[in-house]
């Protein structure tokens, strides 16, 4: 379970304070399929990064399975990100010099990749219709295929939570629909919690819960 308690994030932009998140209190249960919506600059990505431990709040706590990640050491936080959370980015963020299977396995590389993990990566790509693309570099894949590789990378560690930052933003409608279907299937089949930042009502319409943000605050849940 994810819980935020009075989370506030203030950025310094020159002499100006910019509020990214204000007094956010949120509970997300295990296995939820949830979207966060709001206009540009409303704090959607900020909230996602705070939940994912990529950024620290100015005040407040973020708890994952009851553990406050705000107080965690850098090393432990990295382990949480590696073992419990998967990230999907709008621009896919694949490593351009690595093939689809290598990109899928990137989170495991520092510890070394076992044969079982390799097998899992292959199966993930196969299940995402990328069997004949495993040795292709990102530049040789379509946007939809790249994002599916990114989802495989997010799932390789069998995380409890997947955080997706505008995952369909760079895709056409058909690829976007297929991607959301894929995430929904993973949520239903594996019980993975999906938190999807989007400003596309079609995407949010497919999630079971939607949170609306404005000026860093939750205005509707």
């Amino acid at each position: 379970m994810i819980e935020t308690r009075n989370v506030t994030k203030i950025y310094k932009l020159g002499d100006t304070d910019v509020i990214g998140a204000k007094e956010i209190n949120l509970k997300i249960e295990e296995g939820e399929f949830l979207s966060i919506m709001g206009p540009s600059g409303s704090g959607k990505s900020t909230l996602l990064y705070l939940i994912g431990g990529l950024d620290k709040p100015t005040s407040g706590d973020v708890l994952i399975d009851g553990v406050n990640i705000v107080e965690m050491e850098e090393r432990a936080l990295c382990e949480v990100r590696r073992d419990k959370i998967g990230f999907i980015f709008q621009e896919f963020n694949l490593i351009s010099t690595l093939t689809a299977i290598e990109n899928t396995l990137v989170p495991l590389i520092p510890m070394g990749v076992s044969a079982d993990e390799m097998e899992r990566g292959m199966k993930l790509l196969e299940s995402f219709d990328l069997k004949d693309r495993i040795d292709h570099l990102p530049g040789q894949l379509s946007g939809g295929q790249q994002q599916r590789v990114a989802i495989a990378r997010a799932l390789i560690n069998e995380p409890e939570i997947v955080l997706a930052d505008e995952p369909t933003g760079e895709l056409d409608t058909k690829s976007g629909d297929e991607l959301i279907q894929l995430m929904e299937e993973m949520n239903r089949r594996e019980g993975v919690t999906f938190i999807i930042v989007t400003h596309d009502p079609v995407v949010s319409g497919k999630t079971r819960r939607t949170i609306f943000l404005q000026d860093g605050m939750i205005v509707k849940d």
Partner: protein
Amino acid sequence: MISRGRTGNMKMRHMAYRNLLGRMFRTILMLLAVAIAVALFVGLSSLTEGMEEMIGGATESMGEWGCVDAMGEGGGIFYGKLNGDVGKTIDRIPGVRYVVPRVYAMTELKGVELKRPVSTGQISGMMGEAGGIVMEQMVGMMGGTAGKMLEGKGIAELMNSVILIGIDPTKETIIQSYPTKMIEGSIFDSPIGGAVIGKMLADESGLGVGDEVRVAYGGKRRDFNITGIYEVGNPLEDEGIVVSLRDARDLKGLGRSEVSIFRVIPEPHVETGTIGMWIKAKCRGVSIMDQGALMKAIGEQIDQFKVYEYIVEAIVILASFGFILVMTMRSIAERTKEIGTLRAIGWQKPDVLRLITIESTAIAIIGTILGIIIGILLPYFFQAMMPIVFPNMIVPPMTELTKVTSATIIYAFIIGCTSGIVGGIVPALQASEMSPVDAFRAE
């Protein structure tokens, strides 16, 4: 496809290798930066080492303590002559340890074509017929030693010229000269008909131990049996032929006690300059060549050259280091999103540092090895290319002048690897410190 390794390092190496290949242009630029710096270091160092060795060899061939050559005034070593009485007078001067007689002659080898770095064809082509006439005129004008040396000799004859040195092997042994420097065979036993030749001459002529060689001087010709090959490290002497005093006198037409020079070795701690002054005072018609002072002056020139060498090397290495630093920083700046992504998906700071360090280390090691190979081949390349690019230029024997020592290779390896690795680690440290959000924002 990714290889099935068992350790984290193997996987990291694989990823680093893919990154280097995937960014080939940048990788080649960085390899070249390291390789050029190392090649220049090896090239310059080996040139200095070679020159030092040559001077060292020349100094050694003079004896342990430096020496003074006494010779007939006006004739130099080739055309001056001294009577044996001069030797006895010099021997009585306080501070003189040994007086060693030598006969020098500029002779010609018959029946052998010497393969020298500057060939006869090159000189003829360079000068042409008109050039030959001008040279003849110049020889006529020069007079003195140089004039006598060149008088009446054609270009082909000059190119086959060899310095003949007549020695007393017993006395040369005492001053640790020719007989102690044999690399093949031995010094001649008999005072008649035996000869040893320098290694350079052996290489150029193809002559070896057991061969006969015909030497001409003026109208005279003599055949010698080669009993050994020596190497003193001084190209002038290593390209010579050494025979007995008696044979040399006979060939040159000198009297029984006459010599070209007396090589005078002072007692330890006695300055060669002081001995030179004594000889001048005691012996009339004798000129002095203070070899000790000459070698000291050349040694000082080499030291000066070394200072310039160090400065150039330092500049080249710093420039290379700076280039690698800038290239790695640029590369990392372009990879900010990649590094941010790696950190976001759970890579620790040391993991990012390790990846970039492996990449830098690979570039540093490969670049250094390339640089060492290029540095060693550089003199051969110049020697082969110079006559093509500058057909009218006489090319120095660069491969003979340079000497690559194991110390040079070790230093090159340390310097190349250090600059490459440090140049990569500094930006890697900065990159690993970046938080994922900062990395995404920087993008």
